[in-house]
């Protein structure tokens, strides 16, 4: 079902958290609300599920205006960060809770619970209590409970934040698989760009209560609208170099780069964004500096290179270590993939 937020605003007392936010989530789409802590992404999610009352604007599920509908009648499924399983109920009772509230027959509840348990693969744990389950299993139970009554929209609030790294990887693909199998519209709230990029059809990146950019993950990665977006996506993160642009030549006290596709701008201060994969020994535009940090990640090695004016560039390269700390290197930048921002951070 299509979800639409029109001029949505939310304030707590005198504090305006979100103002005039517009967002459309397509039917069957999984959208990530990505942003740093306090950007309003969870507030938006809680407004969609009705836990927070909306202060301004409208929320529509399909054509139905749910702005003032209490959460009990909204038909949303929510997976909370701490899963919020009912500790005194068995797993089967947890999953069947939304149906029990609706007074469905016991047989019907049982059938649906088993169906859901099969979908999230926890059929063997139904008679346990939440405290007897591991984090990943609890996560699956929370998903099953959110999905059992076929909600119009599935809301996931930092669902992977409490899992260890290995489980996080596994649940990432699990949640995506389940979302695609059920074809449900979903909103994922996360501060982890990897989660957002790997799980979602589109990402809405938020900053201080505003949506900065909405785009498909790769599109956003390649064409960020601002240095904030560029800095948020990508791991290891993009490096920024301040300098001035004259014609198509970028200059700072440390480097000078010819930018073939750069927007023409005379003598203005700009900021270059150079992703680690675009700073490699074989690339043409050579820049020299001193290696200040080497981090071996197994398959790849990450280098920090300090330019002569003190600014840092990052490079990520294949397995073999090519330089040690303190060594001077002269590596190249791929000019086609350089991102240029003005001094306020807007993309040029």
């Amino acid at each position, binding site marked *: 079902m299509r979800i639409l937020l029109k001029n949505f605003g939310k304030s707590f007392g005198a504090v305006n958290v979100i103002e005039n936010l517009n967002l459309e989530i397509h039917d069957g789409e999984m959208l990530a609300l990505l942003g740093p802590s306090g950007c309003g992404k969870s507030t938006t999610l*809680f407004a969609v*599920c*009705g*836990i927070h009352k909306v202060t301004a604007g409208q929320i529509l599920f399909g054509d139905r205006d749910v702005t003032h509908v*209490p*959460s*009990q*009648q*909204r038909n*949303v*499924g*929510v997976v*909370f*960060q*701490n899963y*919020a*399983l*009912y*500790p*005194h*109920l068995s797993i089967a009772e947890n999953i069947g*809770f*939304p149906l*029990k*509230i*609706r007074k469905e027959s016991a047989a019907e509840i049982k059938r649906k619970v088993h169906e859901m348990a099969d979908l999230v693969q926890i059929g063997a744990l139904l008679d*346990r*209590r939440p*405290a*007897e*389950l*591991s984090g990943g*299993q609890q996560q699956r139970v929370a998903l099953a*409970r959110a999905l059992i*009554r076929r909600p119009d929209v599935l809301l996931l609030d930092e669902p992977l934040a409490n899992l260890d790294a290995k489980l996080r990887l596994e649940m990432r693909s699990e949640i995506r698989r389940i979302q695609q199998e059920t074809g449900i519209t979903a909103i994922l709230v996360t501060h982890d760009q990897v989660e957002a990029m790997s799980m979602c059809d589109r990402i809405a990146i938020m900053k201080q209560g505003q949506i900065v950019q909405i785009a498909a993950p790769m599109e956003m990665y390649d064409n960020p609208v601002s240095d904030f977006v560029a800095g948020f996506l990508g791991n290891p993160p993009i490096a920024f170099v301040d300098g001035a642009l004259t014609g198509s030549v970028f200059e700072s006290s440390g480097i000078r780069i010819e930018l073939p596709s750069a927007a023409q701008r005379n003598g203005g201060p700009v900021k270059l964004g150079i992703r680690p994969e675009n700073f490699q020994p074989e690339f043409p535009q050579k820049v020299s500096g001193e290696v200040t940090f080497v981090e071996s990640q197994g398959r790849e090695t990450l280098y920090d290179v300090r330019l002569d004016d003190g600014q840092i560039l990052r490079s990520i390269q294949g397995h073999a270590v090519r330089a040690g700390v303190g060594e001077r290197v002269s590596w190249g930048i791929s000019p086609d993939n350089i991102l240029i921002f003005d001094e306020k951070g807007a993309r040029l």
Partner: protein
Amino acid sequence: MNGSKSLGLMLLTPAIVFVLLFFVAPVILTAVFALTNMSTATGITGGAYQVTQSSLRKLAESYGQAELANTLAETRYTVNEEGLEAIAADGADARLVAEMRAKLGGRSFEKRRDLESAIKTLNSRPRNTRALKALSDTFHRSIVNERFESADAMLRATTNLGVALSADQKSALADATYTGWVWTTQNFTRMIALPDTQRTLINTFIYVFATLAIFNTGFALVLSIATHYMPARPAGIFRAIWLLPRISPPVLYVLLWKWLAWDTGFLSNFLANFGVAPRNWLLDNPTNAWIFIVLINGFVGASMGMLIFSSAIKAIPGSLFHASEVDGASRWQQIRYIILPQLRWPILFITCYQSLSLLTSFEYILLATEGGPGGATEVWALKTYLTALNNYAGNLEYGYGAALALVLVVVGVVLSLAYLKVFDFKTMVRPPRIEQ
């Protein structure tokens, strides 16, 4: 013994001493006293032997020695050496003394007239009636109301009286006239036999159950859940108001209730406006007395449950409420499926703690109705107190009181164990089964 062990023991010592001194020892003493008939009359040290009207009645009724009792009750005149020496010392004629010793020595007369007739037959009898009366008086023998330090002394006196006793009669007499305490199980048979006991039992049940169910858990739950759904400030004020009865001095608190309920009190004055005759609402009938007793205790007792339940509700993660809301649960369903199950432990705690404390608490009843009207609100603990420690009759029955108290101890322990069973203590502390 290593250092940490002895340190642990040392730290435990005050607790152990405390438990022994203030719990174990009193319980043992109670059990000991319960098996005696100690009272103000017997004292708590040993007693003496005394033939009194009541001990003679006891001798007749409990020992089947009615005849002996009658004999002992009678005033007797016995001519014995003791009496003869006494009249000789009083300056009686030596011939009279010798003649009495020879002719009447050892004889016993039931009536003064019989003795006097016998004396009149003597050759050296006194000349005038006054001397005769004085003479016969000297031979007057009775052990009624006389106090003896030992059973032997009493039995000797009985023999002196001219009453011959069989072995059975001796022991019966010693038992019946003993004024000290003795070991007995009569406290318990008496407790079972008395119709009062059943009444007190029912009273106690009404008191504990009504106060506990209506106020200490029921109303406390209502208060805590209501304040949970209230905004923080009014909720805090509301809770503070319900704490007031708990922090006011009990005597003044009950006095306020009395002012409310007396026939010249607020209720009567207010209702007089509607033509209701003034009366003492607290004591005028058992139903009213019970309503007040439950209210007085409940208003005090509800606050503790309210605090415990409120903090327990606060401890429930907010996300559970959010989750249940989006799962479609109304407030009632939230209370039923989220709050109440989460309050299982606190409710167990309050039920246990409060039922035990209500079982033994009687101060508010003592202050308000003193068990009245007519014993209608006399609960077990109050009865125990009045029996053993404070009553109008003045005879404090320590032994019977201890027996009553012992019942409370046993009930308390049994109840505690039953609560743990009912609330399934073992499964609640069972370690979780976690699989990674």
